[in-house]
């Protein structure tokens, strides 16, 4: 009997220890993420410049199977089976161009802009109104056809001051008089309670968080920038870029990492998975934003060659002679970058070496195949 008790006791202590260590682990992880917002230089001109936009869209690596997947069945009363059709080439082309258009709409990136500045303009002060009322009067101009950000919203305070409302009040009143679907008057618990947010992050529901934040906040809201910053950093720490790829949030993620000088993990992932061209695109993105690369011009020159090629969804299986030329250039460019500008020199160097060997084999196989088919 006593032996059994001892056993029970010991298991209890073990269990206790386990939970304790887990708790420590989570709290340590929570502490390590410090949100950073765009409060210094305005990132908008760089983000919206056409060169950067093209690179970000390409880095998103849209996979149509993921872009057009069914996410909810909320608006669909009956799930229908797919329709298969015989099409002529022309019809197929129009269908494809339609698909590209709707994909572009689905992948439109949330803008990256500077955080909003507090509103502080007093319109008039009237001390004779002190005592008129103990509560604040909020006046909203509900004139038809005015955008939310330009709407006239002012307040008369109990001390007789007439001033423009601050952003939180503006947001609330805009939502009261012109409700936006999906947006709530109060912050949802997911965002106000760090425990709940942390649990979502632990379950890697990044896309859900980012989509929800997009609906709830404006892009220049400090809370939005904090939330996205935490999510991006979590994605970066756990190397879960694939969960965000082919969604509209990958562009801002890449921009965020580049802006805050932390693209090394993403670069390593790109080299390890063998998407060498996107690694060069990422280099040129850094060149466009930070302009601190040794061989920056070389990479920007390569971009115009890379963009017309097809999007690589996985490691190449077969290469043509043009591909070989382009990829060798990319590898040389990357080699220089890793030696001069990278903070993870050894790991990225190893990954590139691994890719080189793989690529050498691939070249041999492809050339051999072409010879066997009698095309060489």
């Amino acid at each position, binding site marked *: 009997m006593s032996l059994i008790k001892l056993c029970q006791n010991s298991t209890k202590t073990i269990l206790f220890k386990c939970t304790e260590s887990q708790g420590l682990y989570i709290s340590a992880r929570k502490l390590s993420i410090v949100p950073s917002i765009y409060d210094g230089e305005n990132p908008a001109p760089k983000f919206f410049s056409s060169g950067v936009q093209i690179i970000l869209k390409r880095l998103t690596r849209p996979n149509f199977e993921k872009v057009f997947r069914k996410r909810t069945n909320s608006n669909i009363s009956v799930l229908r089976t797919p329709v298969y059709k015989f099409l002529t080439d022309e019809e197929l082309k129009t269908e494809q161009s339609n698909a590209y258009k709707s994909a572009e709409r689905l992948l439109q990136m949330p803008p990256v802009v500077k955080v909003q500045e507090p509103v502080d303009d007093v319109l008039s002060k009237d001390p004779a109104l002190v*005592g008129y009322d103990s*509560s*604040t009067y909020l006046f909203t*101009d509900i004139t038809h056809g005015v955008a939310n950000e330009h709407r*006239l919203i002012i307040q008369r305070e109990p001390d007789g001051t007439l001033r423009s409302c601050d952003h939180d009040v503006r947001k609330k009143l805009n939502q009261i*008089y012109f409700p936006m679907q999906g947006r709530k008057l109060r912050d949802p618990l997911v965002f106000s309670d760090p425990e709940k947010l942390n649990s979502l992050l632990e379950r890697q529901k990044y896309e859900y968080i980012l989509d929800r934040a997009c609906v709830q906040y404006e892009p220049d809201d400090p809370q939005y920038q904090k939330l996205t910053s935490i999510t991006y950093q979590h994605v970066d720490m756990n190397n879960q870029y694939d969960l965000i790829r082919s969604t509209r949030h990958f562009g801002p993620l890449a921009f965020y990492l580049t802006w805050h000088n932390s693209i090394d993990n993403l670069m390593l992932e790109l080299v390890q998975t063998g998407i060498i061209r996107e690694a060069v695109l990422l280099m040129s993105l850094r060149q466009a934003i930070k302009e601190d690369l040794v061989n920056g011009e070389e990479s920007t020159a390569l971009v115009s060659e890379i963009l017309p090629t097809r999007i690589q969804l996985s490691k190449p299986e077969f290469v043509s002679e043009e591909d070989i030329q382009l990829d060798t250039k990319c590898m040389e460019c990357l080699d220089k970058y890793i030696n001069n500008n990278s903070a993870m020199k050894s790991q990225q160097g190893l990954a590139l070496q691994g890719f080189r060997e793989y690529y050498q084999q691939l070249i041999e196989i492809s050339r051999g195949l072409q010879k066997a088919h009698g095309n060489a």
Partner: protein
Amino acid sequence: MPLPPATGTGRYYAIAAKSIRLIRHGCTNRPFFHISVTHRRRLNSQPVIEQLGSYDPMPNMNNEKLVALNLDRIKHWLGKGAHVSPPVAELLGLSGFFPIHPRSYMTAWRNRRTERENQAKEKAEGSS
């Protein structure tokens, strides 16, 4: 019963005098006002020409009273020579659209006076 549209359902006569006034909606012990334009000689219970805003006189949980004004349409009706009832003129005055209504100043100093008197009374009670 569904609310009538903001464009109003009342009959409109071009020559008759109009007035912009508060029209009580809401229910018992819970006032809520529409700011509407209607004929001067028409009752508040009758259909209005157009709704121009709303006013919630009960402070919300943040101690705020919400007023919505369709300034574009208010300007239009003022241009057509609509009269403005004193409570609406007070609200427009507080919003900075009109000059402050004299009655607002009267209410303010009367409130201040009663507060002063109450304080004096409390002081007198405290000392005695």
